[in-house]
């Protein structure tokens, strides 16, 4: 082998604390290294050209680049060596930036450590074999999980691009959080007026199959060929017959159930269609409150239903959908305001969330668009908004900013004045975060045109007194204590990962952060990709987002899916396990443990042997560490490669 070693300065990122020239010089003393140099930016065009030129000039057969993390530029350099005629797997990286120069200031130690990392990269490279991918066909259907605005956008874009789309929604209607909003900032246009048509498009699009009131139960397979089991929860209404006429809701005797669509500030019937624009507009029975289920007798809805759609004996049903890609758009949930006990959320009816306030503002809400406070139905005059409830609060383990609360609070202050001209809004805030087009102008309008009084400071406590809510807090700008007698207190509850998000992530085999938000592949460069090929993210499941950001991500994820499906065949990663049948004793331990069922038993000259199914193997290497005789080896991470690395590190 003729190995070339390239030590990257990364400007001063590496060179600042690593003597790259010394590392290059030391590399020349390692086996089979015939060329070593330091380079300013290995990943830049001149940097890559330098590598390609050296491969040609020095007849290199393998390359080591010591620079940043391979998670960043390994594909870049692999393409580069391939352009120079080498197999792309005859390449290794040593991570001397993230793992060396950025975490230590001792130049001598860093230089020394870099040499060590280059040494093990060389030892691994010496045992690399050229690999070539094989091709497999893909199923050009896509599943979108979550029918909020991000999921709707992704589904529509994919469908418009000619793909078959399966949209799975947990609730009985798509629309998500946006469907519950009255108006949207900063334009103050009607939320359902802009979302509604998109929802109708989903219903009418010939390429979209909608599974509402359904959840993903299990996911098997891999990019291009996933098998997703979708659980269609029992609605007790045959949706093929239900026309959405609403006769059942009118007659249902169980009327006092908390309406989840209205954020439980209004009642609803046990058989229910959540809102007039629901898609699909179909009724669902809640068996926990329905008298037929709870008491065993009623049957009113079945009697009044003109189409005979009521089916009390309906059971959950599992349908399997085969798709080639999955977009997760499962959105967010609200922080539980009752956790901040000093604000009295959950204890005092007139302390509500911003989303509940949206329902009070909405013409389709429980109050018909008239702001009436929950306790006594009176119109509030003094409304206090408290920002950052469950955001930017380390003590609640919610250190992050939920991003959109500042804006919707400003909107709600404006709308309050619109609805009740003689009202006064107060906003307790920490900082105003309004970095968006027309956003800051919008908050200014709330203050300046609509007279909302913004008080910079935290609220210490909220308590009831003589039919009012006393809000006591600090005005840190004035340096005084403030007390406001409020008729209604609206808490800007922070965004949290949707309930069950970690479980779904596990099914999708993607990562999630400690708060349950899904992890993107790269925070800047791969915002909608995940570490699992064929799985993409859109919207707030990745982190709190407002509507335009969510819509943008929905489109971005759709673009990724369309790009993936633009090929007829996918190339499988050749870094998979391979069986040495001479050594295999056919014990099947690899078959038992393989998480992907990628190994099967075959018969070879009358003996049992293991065989890897190339397109199914994901290259985890569990089989290699399970096989006692080392008969199944993960290419590119063979026992001998790892042992060579270990030996290189232990020899000194």
């Amino acid at each position, binding site marked *: 082998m003729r190995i070339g070693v390239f030590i990257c300065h990364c400007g001063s990122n590496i060179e600042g604390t690593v003597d790259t020239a010394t590392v290059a010089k030391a590399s020349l003393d390692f086996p089979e290294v015939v060329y070593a140099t330091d380079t300013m930016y290995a990943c830049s065009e001149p940097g890559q050209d330098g590598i390609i030129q050296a491969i040609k000039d020095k007849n290199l057969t393998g390359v080591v680049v010591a620079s940043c993390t391979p998670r960043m530029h390994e594909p870049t350099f692999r393409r580069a060596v391939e352009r120079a005629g080498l197999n792309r797997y005859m390449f290794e990286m040593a991570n001397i930036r993230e793992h060396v120069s950025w*975490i230590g200031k001792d130049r*001598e130690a860093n230089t020394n450590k870099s040499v060590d990392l280059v040494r*093990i990269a060389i030892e691994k490279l010496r045992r690399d074999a050229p690999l070539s991918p094989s091709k497999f066909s893909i199923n050009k259907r896509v599943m979108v999980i979550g029918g909020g605005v991000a999921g709707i956008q992704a589904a529509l874009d994919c469908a418009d691009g000619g793909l078959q789309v399966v949209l799975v929604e947990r609730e009985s209607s798509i629309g998500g959080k946006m469907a519950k909003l009255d108006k949207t900032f900063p334009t103050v246009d009607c939320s359902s007026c802009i979302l509604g048509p998109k929802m109708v498009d989903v219903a009418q699009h010939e390429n979209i199959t909608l599974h509402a009131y359904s959840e993903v139960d299990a996911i098997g397979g891999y990019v291009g060929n996933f098998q997703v089991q979708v659980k269609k929860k029992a609605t007790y209404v045959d949706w093929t017959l239900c026309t959405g006429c609403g006769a059942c809701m009118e007659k249902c005797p169980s009327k006092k159930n908390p309406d989840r669509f209205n954020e439980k500030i209004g009642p609803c019937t046990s058989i229910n269609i959540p809102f007039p624009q629901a898609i699909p507009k179909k009724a669902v029975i809640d068996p926990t409150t329905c008298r037929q289920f709870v008491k065993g007798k009623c049957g009113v809805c079945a009697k009044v239903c003109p189409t005979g759609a009521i089916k009390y004996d309906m059971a959950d049903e599992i349908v399997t959908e085969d798709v080639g890609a999955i977009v997760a758009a499962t959105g967010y949930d609200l922080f539980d305001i009752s956790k901040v006990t000093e604000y009295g959320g959950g204890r005092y009816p007139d302390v509500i969330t911003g989303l509940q306030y949206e329902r009070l503002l909405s013409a389709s809400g429980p109050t018909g668009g008239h702001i009436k406070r929950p306790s006594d139905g009176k119109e509030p005059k003094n409304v206090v908004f408290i920002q950052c409830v469950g955001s930017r609060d380390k003590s609640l383990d919610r250190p992050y900013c939920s991003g959109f609360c500042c804006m919707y609070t400003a909107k709600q202050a404006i709308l309050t004045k619109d609805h009740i001209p003689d009202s006064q809004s107060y906003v307790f805030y920490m900082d105003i975060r309004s970095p968006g087009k027309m956003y800051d102008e919008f908050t200014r309008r709330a203050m300046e045109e609509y007279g909302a009084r913004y008080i910079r400071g935290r609220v210490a406590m909220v308590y009831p007194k003589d039919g009012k809510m006393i809000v006591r807090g600090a005005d840190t700008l004035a340096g005084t204590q403030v007390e406001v007698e409020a008729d209604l207190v609206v808490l800007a509850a922070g965004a949290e990962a949707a309930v069950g998000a970690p479980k779904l992530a596990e099914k999708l085999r993607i990562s999630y952060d400690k708060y349950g938000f899904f992890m993107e592949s790269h925070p800047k460069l791969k915002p909608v990709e995940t570490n699992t090929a064929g799985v993409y993210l859109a919207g707030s499941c990745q982190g709190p987002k407002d509507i335009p950001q969510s819509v943008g991500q929905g489109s971005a994820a759709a673009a990724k899916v369309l790009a993936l499906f633009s090929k007829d065949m996918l190339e499988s990663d050749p870094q998979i396990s391979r069986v040495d049948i001479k050594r295999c004793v056919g014990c099947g331990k690899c078959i038992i443990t393989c998480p992907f069922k990628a190994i099967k038993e075959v018969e070879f000259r009358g003996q049992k042997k293991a065989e890897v199914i190339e397109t199914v193997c994901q290259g*985890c290497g569990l089989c290699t560490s399970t096989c006692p005789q080392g008969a199944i080896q993960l290419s590119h991470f063979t026992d001998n490669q790892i042992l060579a690395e270990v030996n290189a*590190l*232990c020899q000194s």
Partner: protein
Amino acid sequence: MPVLTGKELRIVGFLCNWCSYGGADTAGVGRFGQPTDLRIIRVPCSGRIDPLFIAKTLINGADGVLVSGCHPRDCHYAEGNFYARRRLEVLKRFLPILGIDPGRFDYTWVSASEGQRWQKVVTVFTEQIHALGPAPRFDAVSADMLAKAAAGALGQGGNRVAA
């Protein structure tokens, strides 16, 4: 060039590519300073880490071995770290019977977002290895100890560590 004599000890890390290697990257991006002893070997999954790699590394003279993978339930390959957890725990309990201090090996879970956790793990583990000092070597057992072994006189004193 070996470890820096008197300054560093030989600590080898086996990290899964998806979570912990990424966590170490995140720590780097965040400039979370760490001791320089650790050398990381990247593997696709903690399930790829045959406990024998660790035994071999320690028997061949490393002063410490640190393994890190995705948190349980968060494995990129769904199950690899569950198997790893069992195997690594068995190994950890096995090492002392061989005469290797169990403190020289640890395994943990660090996700790609946990740069600060990685910084802490590396710092704490490195300090732990420095507290233990350079690892005694099988090929350098003292003549005195060998004589005791020959006389069947081992295990007479105190200083027991549960095996």
